[in-house]
């Protein structure tokens, strides 16, 4: 019983870590530019398809495809940012949401046209499959790998934000964009780079998530809600908030689906709405 509970909690945590990698970029860019980017899931999908294509058609090993997934998603985001997003920074919430929903529609249809509507499985290397048993407890190796990867990314992000020059610029832009501009910071450039990094992380998350959540053209929509919950409840531009919320979200989702499947996602949405009503700016809001 206890062993079962602990491995459920672990699965939930691993799932939460995946959600963290997927959504942390959205949190930072939304906090910085106040840009409601509902197309974040599209970048995750681009990363996922990059990995699938490289492994299946070019025979690349799984690990080698991960950096490429990151780079391709980041590159795609830079193009979109230059062509479309840049014009919309001063537009209303409504226009921003609809423009990005339009991008999601186009990307879903394009993915279905190019890759078909089915699920895209990947063949993981042998050493990532199976489970580790330790007494009564057993953990999936891939989930352990996922947790370690997410923790490494978190540490890198926190250190990068707190101790590098670029991190200081990002923090300045988030805290007070007009002041940062006034002091001569090139806010647009900082934002472009942050946006590319965040989208790249989403691409990485999309690639890492194929084994756990699958990959099909509807991915961009299906996980959008989860990403938005992480960002909204965690608080904009707060890495700590996104981390805690993603972990909680993963655990609540997995545990409630296991113990009370009949009310399923209900618990999740209820928790989200109550948290947002209680603290509209998020649990770890900076402002």
């Amino acid at each position, binding site marked *: 019983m206890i062993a079962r509970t602990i491995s459920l909690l672990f699965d939930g945590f691993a799932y939460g870590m995946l959600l963290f990698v997927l959504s942390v970029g959205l949190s930072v860019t939304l906090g910085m530019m106040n840009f409601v980017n509902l197309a974040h899931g599209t970048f995750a999908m681009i990363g996922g398809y990059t990995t699938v294509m490289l492994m299946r058609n070019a025979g690349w090993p799984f690990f080698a495809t991960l950096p490429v997934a990151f780079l391709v998603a980041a590159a795609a985001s830079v193009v979109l940012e230059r062509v*479309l997003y840049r014009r919309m920074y001063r537009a209303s919430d409504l226009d921003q949401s609809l*423009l990005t929903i339009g991008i999601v529609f186009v990307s879903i249809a394009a993915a279905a046209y190019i890759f078909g509507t089915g699920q895209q499985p990947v063949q993981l290397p042998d050493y990532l499959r199976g489970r580790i048993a330790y007494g009564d407890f057993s953990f999936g190796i891939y989930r352990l790998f996922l947790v370690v990867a997410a923790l490494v990314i978190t540490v890198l992000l926190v250190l990068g934000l707190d101790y590098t020059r670029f991190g200081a610029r990002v923090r300045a832009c988030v805290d007070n964009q007009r002041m940062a501009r006034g002091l001569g910071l090139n806010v647009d450039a900082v934002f472009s780079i942050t946006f590319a990094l965040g989208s790249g992380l989403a691409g990485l998350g999309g690639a890492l998530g194929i084994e756990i959540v699958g990959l099909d053209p509807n991915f961009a929509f299906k996980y959008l809600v989860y990403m938005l919950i992480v960002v909204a409840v965690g608080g904009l531009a707060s890495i700590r908030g996104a981390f805690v919320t993603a972990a909680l979200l993963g655990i609540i989702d997995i545990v409630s689906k296991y113990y009370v499947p009949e009310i399923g996602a209900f618990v999740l949405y209820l928790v989200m*709405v109550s948290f947002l009503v209680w603290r509209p700016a*998020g649990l770890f809001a900076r402002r």
Partner: protein
Amino acid sequence: MSVTTAPALAAVDPREVLRAQVKWRWLETIFWLATLLPFLVAPTYLVLGSQIAITALFALSLDLIVGYCGLVSLGHAAFFGFGAYTAGLISKAGWGEPITGLLAAGCAAMVLGYLTSFIIVRITHFALIMVTLGMCLLLYEVANKAHSITGGDDGLQGVHMWPLLGHFQFDLYGTTAYGYAIVILFLSFLVLRRLVNSPFGLSLRGIRENPRRMPAIGSPMSNRIRTIYTISAAFAGLAGGLLAQTTEFVALDALSFQRSAEVLVMLVLGGAGRLYGGLIGAMIFMIARDQLADMNPQYWYFWLGLLLIAVIVFLPNGILGGCAELLARWRRKA
């Protein structure tokens, strides 16, 4: 002497401005007369016509909060679906009279809207989008899991309507359905047209233009938002009730996120903040979907997405806004 200054003052009298907006234009009369045309020229499209009228009413209700008040809701389908299920369940319980059933659907959605409006006024921006979305998803899950009442995934079956006004049977060709939907749409339109061109409607536009100044000039902002949110929910419930009654079926999809997103898309395509924007947007959207979805639903989403991006980038005020701008430019030249 005082007589000479009077015209200058009268020119900016807000009541005059409102009165000018309320005046019927010939284009509007033509538009509403044209809604009767399908009876004569396209009787095979009456079913689609009734769907368009219902969707247009739904878009109209959303326009009140998105277009006039400037609040973004991604969960308006909650009220649409709530009205649809109310109308469907009343009929299933043995009362098949359409008009009272429809009013009940509107009232039920109105109560839900009133209760949730207390949450809505507390939050803004991104959190508002998420909370409206979350409440719609919550209701969707409830309807999905309450299988014994709503039929869950299979939809609510066994809805049967009595003849409208005791005479007009709902038929397969949609003649009664279309007439019923158009009349309800027109009556709702008259009410809303009066509403948005009243001092109350002006104060809503004030909230959209400057939410900080409105309380400063003494307008009770949260009160106004709560009122309009409740009214908007009521009309969305009417639209949902109409759908349930004319199709004699309620699908779970009435509460879905897709429905909320699609109605927002229609509104923006047509032009938010104008009553005719919702109507035109719903017409274009539904007809285009009817034509394109025959080919392949995936392609339909591709073109829809592309159209959406193009409208947002090139026509920030929607198709009607673009037309109005062209017209103004042409008048200035002339």
